[in-house]
């Protein structure tokens, strides 16, 4: 094994590598942490048709279509994305595939970047499709490649479930060459692919038979591994939990499940018989534990290991200690007091001003999924709800319909989120004549996930120019009469337009249109600085919550003056617009890069 083929890859990169090696020809998805880098990595390959779709359902539709067309296909999304795609997913289990179709669900235990920590293993059981759970980057690659084989062998979509710790871990992976099989072509078969009730009824038994076959397969699969050890303690586990178990209790005997649906229940039963105490260690819900119990296996699990949040070696150690298997770990001293550091809107973020305005107006704000959700936190604290992609508008309509508030009701939604799931909500607002205002915060990218293109940006995932969706025309076309466009760095104009739109009876739309300061281009304009002598420490600038503005040790009338970190200030002007004594000015010492 040469150094050249041993590379350090994240789980996501490893899945992309698997797709390359497996000869995938079409891949589709929607950005969502922690899944995003799979398609981004794959897109760099160049020969593969990789695309962002407007949402996960469309992505899976594309993938299924491509699969039926005869090429291996990958669909990627985060866990909640599968909720969107679930409609297609459930029925794809009936139709089966053409060439191999693998769906990656990147789950987010611990909710590092998500609104829930749903355990998507249940989707496999619900749909009746096989579920693979890699435990590190190497397995992510190997399992994904195998998933294509399983998909084709059993004529089923395959769900590969990763978690944040798999997706964003780097580990050593050995790479191999890409092998592309000739396309199978599309074989017309309405009874298989047209799921009218008559045909679907026929496919349901097929699905059940397939599961039976899969169960047999799983019993024999190398992905089910019995790791030798001291049989006083036996552990059934999968995914990242397996690594923690090996780390914490290396001497134990372990049944490592690479495929967790369907389960190799015979293997599990015999394993259980051979150990003194049987534990299931799994992240989130007792998916395995319940299945084992249902099969009549006496097993210990969630009694000792947390059901909420991410597992960790420490958590696993504590669980085994609580079970009396390990000694309690020595207490680690508490860390010294430090400052809390919640995520923030970036310096110069174009979302700041609209939320400053909404807070001043005192609107009831139905938020959505994206960076702007951070506006729910202090100091902006200007968001009242945030549930799911595209939910803001419908929820705003509902809030308005309830009569439960006399305040103006505003929905805030990002450009990509709007195109993902917001348009039907807007149509609802028009159709049912809701007096709501929709702020489309157009920053020209999918910012939260790192700056991806989307149907509104005019660029594809592979960097080609394409026709962008015209948001103004779109809103007008569905029947919104009052559509405004405003520069969100122009605080006064933003206030005026939002107030004007709120005053409009019926649905109105305000589109704010500054690009994200981080992606795709890092914005760094002439920074502002504080003339300390002029600062009266009123703190009005601090209300914007800009990370570049901090207190200094200088005071005025007992209040702290402020300073601007010119290295991080992007020069957005917002604080300068707020500052009453004009103490915030363009930094006279700054030199534009490249101007010497």
């Amino acid at each position, binding site marked *: 094994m040469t150094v050249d083929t041993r590379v350090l890859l994240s789980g996501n990169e490893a899945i992309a590598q698997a797709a390359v090696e497996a000869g995938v020809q079409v891949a589709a998805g929607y950005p969502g942490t922690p899944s995003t880098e799979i398609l981004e990595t794959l897109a760099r390959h160049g020969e593969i048709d990789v695309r962002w779709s407007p949402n996960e359902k469309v992505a899976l539709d594309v993938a299924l279509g491509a699969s039926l067309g005869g090429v291996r296909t990958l669909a990627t999304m985060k866990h909640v994305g599968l909720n969107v795609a679930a409609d297609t997913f459930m029925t794809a289990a009936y139709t089966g595939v053409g060439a191999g179709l693998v769906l990656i669900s990147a789950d987010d235990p611990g909710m590092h970047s998500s609104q829930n920590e749903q355990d998507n293993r249940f989707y496999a059981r619900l749909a009746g499709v096989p579920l693979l759970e890699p435990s590190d980057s190497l397995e992510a690659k190997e399992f994904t490649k195998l998933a294509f084989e399983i998909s084709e062998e059993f004529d089923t979509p395959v769900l590969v479930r990763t978690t944040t710790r798999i997706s964003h871990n780097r580990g050593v992976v050995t790479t191999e060459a890409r092998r592309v099989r000739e396309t199978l072509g599309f074989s017309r078969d309405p009874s298989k692919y047209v799921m009218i009730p008559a045909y679907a009824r026929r496919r349901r038994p097929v699905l059940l038979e397939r599961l039976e076959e899969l169960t047999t397969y799983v019993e024999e699969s190398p992905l089910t591994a019995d790791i030798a050890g001291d049989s006083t303690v036996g552990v059934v586990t999968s995914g990242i939990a397996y690594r923690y178990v090996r780390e914490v209790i290396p001497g134990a005997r372990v049944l490592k499940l690479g495929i967790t649906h369907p389960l190799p229940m015979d293997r599990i039963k015999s394993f259980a018989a051979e150990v003194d105490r049987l534990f299931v260690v799994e992240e989130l819900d007792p998916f395995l534990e319940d299945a084992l119990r249902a099969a009549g296996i006496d097993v210990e699990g969630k009694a000792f290991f947390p059901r909420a949040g991410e597992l960790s070696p420490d958590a696993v150690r504590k669980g085994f200690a609580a079970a009396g298997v390990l000694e309690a770990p020595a207490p680690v001293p508490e860390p010294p007091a430090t400052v809390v550091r919640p995520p923030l809107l970036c310096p110069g973020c174009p979302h700041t001003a609209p939320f400053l305005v909404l807070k001043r107006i005192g609107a009831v704000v139905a938020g959505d999924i994206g960076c702007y959700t951070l506006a729910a936190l202090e100091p902006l604290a200007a968001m009242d709800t945030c549930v799911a992609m595209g939910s803001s508008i419908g929820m705003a309509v509902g809030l308005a319909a309830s009569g439960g508030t006399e305040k103006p009701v505003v929905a805030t939604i990002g450009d990509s989120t709007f195109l993902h799931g917001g348009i039907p909500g807007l149509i609802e607002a028009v159709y049912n004549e809701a007096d709501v205002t929709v702020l489309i915060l157009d920053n020209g990218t999918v910012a939260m996930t790192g700056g991806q293109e989307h149907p509104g940006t005019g660029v594809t995932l592979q960097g080609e120019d394409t026709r962008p969706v015209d948001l103004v025309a779109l809103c007008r076309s569905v029947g919104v009469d009052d559509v405004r466009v405003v520069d969100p760095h122009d605080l006064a*104009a933003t206030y005026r337009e939002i107030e004007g739109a709120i005053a409009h009876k019926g649905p109105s739309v305000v589109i704010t249109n500054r690009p994200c300061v981080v992606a795709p281009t890092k914005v760094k304009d002439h920074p502002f600085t504080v003339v300390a002598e002029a600062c*009266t420490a009123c703190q009005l600038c601090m209300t914007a919550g800009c990370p570049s503005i901090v207190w200094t040790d200088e005071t005025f009338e007992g209040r702290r003056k402020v300073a601007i970190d010119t290295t991080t200030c992007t020069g957005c002007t917002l604080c300068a617009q707020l500052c009453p004594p004009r103490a915030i000015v363009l930094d006279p010492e700054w030199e534009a890069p490249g101007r010497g």
Partner: protein
Amino acid sequence: MTDVRDYLREWAMPHVLCPGCAHGTILRAFLEAVKRLELDPDKLAMVAGIGCSSRLIGYVDFCTLHATHGRAPAFATGLKLARPDMTVAVVTGDGDGLAIGGNHLIHAARRNVDLTVLLLNNSIYGMTGGQAAPTSPAGSVASTAPAGTAEAPFDACKLLEGAGASFVARVMAVDPIMSTNVMVEALSHRGFSFVEVISDCPEYFGRYNALGSGAEMLAWMARKEAGVAAALANKRYVNHVPTASDTSGLATGVFHREERPVFTGLSTQAAR
């Protein structure tokens, strides 16, 4: 004197100006300057012409001379020459000071009479109901310019500097602290000091030009500050979504200051 309200003729309050009109804010900034300089109210005269701005002097407990339209600089010149021991401040508006009274203003500046002139620029005639003023931006709507004025506006500060004012500054009502600081300097300056104060008129200019309430117009004012406006003009918008953003800016601060013989009415010949 702990509170600037002590300078007010409290029995005359509240003043007649409309809600959100920043003229009162400017008056307050001026009174802060008076307070900081500890000027003797008995020796402080305020002279004003006609218009909303000029009404302000009725509410301050100094010697206040409410003159005719545009002529306050002339009245003030006479008063100052007659009472060199007094501090004489003129409050005028953009119409009062730059249209009907433009001639008096520039000549007072040229003479370098020791006056402080506050020109409250709200871009319109407020008192008479929203007619176009010499400061109305080209294209702005007024009752006498229903389709937008076709005229170019004055830059009062450039005009006054050209006329020979020995102290020229511009501040904005939205910046009361800077306004006070500049007014302190203007009042301390020996000679003709001119301070243009950008104010608002929500009732007419704001309403006709869809600029919102007084509060919104103050925000708009802050955004017009030159550094901010220039920075905003420099930036790009999201591809494919057009925005017509007003990128014109307005510089603030002290633009010009010089020491120059102050006109006292005594001819140089006689002085010799």
